[in-house]
């Protein structure tokens, strides 16, 4: 199993969620994060002084999936999240050594 994390632009969340639902993903977890990267933050002015806010609001989506679905899920996320502009974000994948559904105690792919 794989745990796929995607850092995306906040306003793409709904599109990504719909796209993933469309290919049969049944669950995912979302975190509000702040990103630092090529896309620069912004400057706020407060009474004549400048404040640089280096971080940009982003959304992190985490989806655990069976390994064979990895490519499809990554592609789906990419398509839904892409705007073509700097700051579109990343997809990271790590191996999941085990998974369990708390309610039933099911493990492995049944838990997803």
């Amino acid at each position, binding site marked *: 199993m794989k745990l796929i994390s995607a850092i995306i632009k906040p306003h793409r969340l709904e599109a990504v969620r719909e796209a993933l639902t469309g290919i049969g993903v049944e669950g995912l977890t979302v975190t509000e994060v702040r990103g630092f990267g090529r896309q620069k933050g912004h400057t*706020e*002015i*407060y*009474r*004549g*002084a400048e*404040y640089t*806010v280096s971080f940009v609001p982003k959304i992190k989506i985490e989806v655990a999936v069976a390994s064979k679905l990895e490519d499809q899920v990554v592609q789906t996320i990419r398509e839904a999240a892409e705007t073509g502009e700097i700051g579109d974000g990343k997809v990271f994948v790590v191996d999941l050594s085990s998974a369990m559904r708390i309610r039933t105690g099911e493990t492995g792919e049944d838990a997803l």
Partner: protein
Amino acid sequence: MSGIANRSAVPFGLTLSTLFVAFFSVFLLAEPALAAEAVVNGADTAWILTATALVLFMTLPGLALFYGGLVRSKNVLSVLMHCFAIACLASVLWLVVVYSLAFGDGGSLQSWIGGLNNAFFAGIGAGQVRADTTLPESVFFAFQMTFAIITPALIVGAFVERMKFGAVLLFSALWLILVYAPVAHWVWGGGWLAGLGVKDFAGGLVVHATAGTSAVVLVLVLGKRHGFPQDMHPPHSPGMVMMGAAMLWVGWFGFNAGSALTAGAGAGMALLVTHTSAATASLVWMTIEWVKGGKPSLVGMVTGTIAGLATITPASGFVGPVGALVIGLAAGIVCYGAVSLIRVRLKIDDSLDVFAVHGVGGILGTLLTAIFGAASLGGMGLGEKVGIGDQLWVQAVGVIATVAWSVVLTFVIAKAVGGIVGLRVDERDETEGLDLTAHGETGYNL
């Protein structure tokens, strides 16, 4: 009130025992010594009761929110606490001694300070009319109290995010007695500045110049916030700032139009010019930001509002609407420049710009009163044979005296408080935030 009021008492000489006697005298002398000849005017009383509520509203919650929104979220409660605690402390001190020092009979020292004859409201009958007004003295007392509440609270903006709570209280108490009481007496209590003919309708000198000047002196003694100026943060809640500013604006109607002490055309015109200056200065500040940075900000606009309000304050009973337009324009431009100069260029960490907005505004307005108060410039007139130049000179004397007194006394008080309880929290507490370290609370548990 024979035997109670020590007519030669000066602030430093007031002894606990004198106050003790005053405290109990109110039980013994329930009958007012002086029969009230004047009559209460119900309409004026109705308006000043309302104005009293409006001015209290300026501090609680107006000013508290205005300042609270400007700091970081880890210090928001400490700022609200400062404003609230100062308001309570000033109220009690007002009753104990400050009203008497400001508005009591100073006897041979009347030019400099009032006496202790009205400490604990002693010697004032429940139905007594305040001299030279049509108001019950209780109403005059309460209305003036709300000014004594907001003035030390204004200084909070200078020392946010780093001053010890105990030091805040001690400083404010001493400051109220040693700076506010005398200056209020000089200008409004029949003291020497009143004698000179200084015009300060609602507190350009008494409130804004004292608080603003003291703010910057206190900051120089106290020091900058850790990380100032390179590592600062934008206001944690501009919406809270705006809410506070709006309440200050509404409450300022009580402040300025209430200072007419009557419900008539004088109050009406004071309200109108107050409003006009506030609106104009807001638009000016907005425009400057728009032209300079491309983005007019909410915090900028409402800072302009406060600048416009502080600046019109001394002038509000003396100028006409077009004078108010010009005063608002000047307020916006000059206070904007002052902010940039003091905090941004000189890097003095008067954190929320108390001097640049209130001090500069109050002084500017005091001087402009001499100009736009002239009948030839739409004002109510400067008085028989008083030219603009004459009045300007008188106003300048008022400014210099007020500033000098505030600077010296604030320096002494700040040093004294520093010696007694220490002024600053330690760096770790400053980093963690005063809400948790000084008050054991967190601002937002969402």
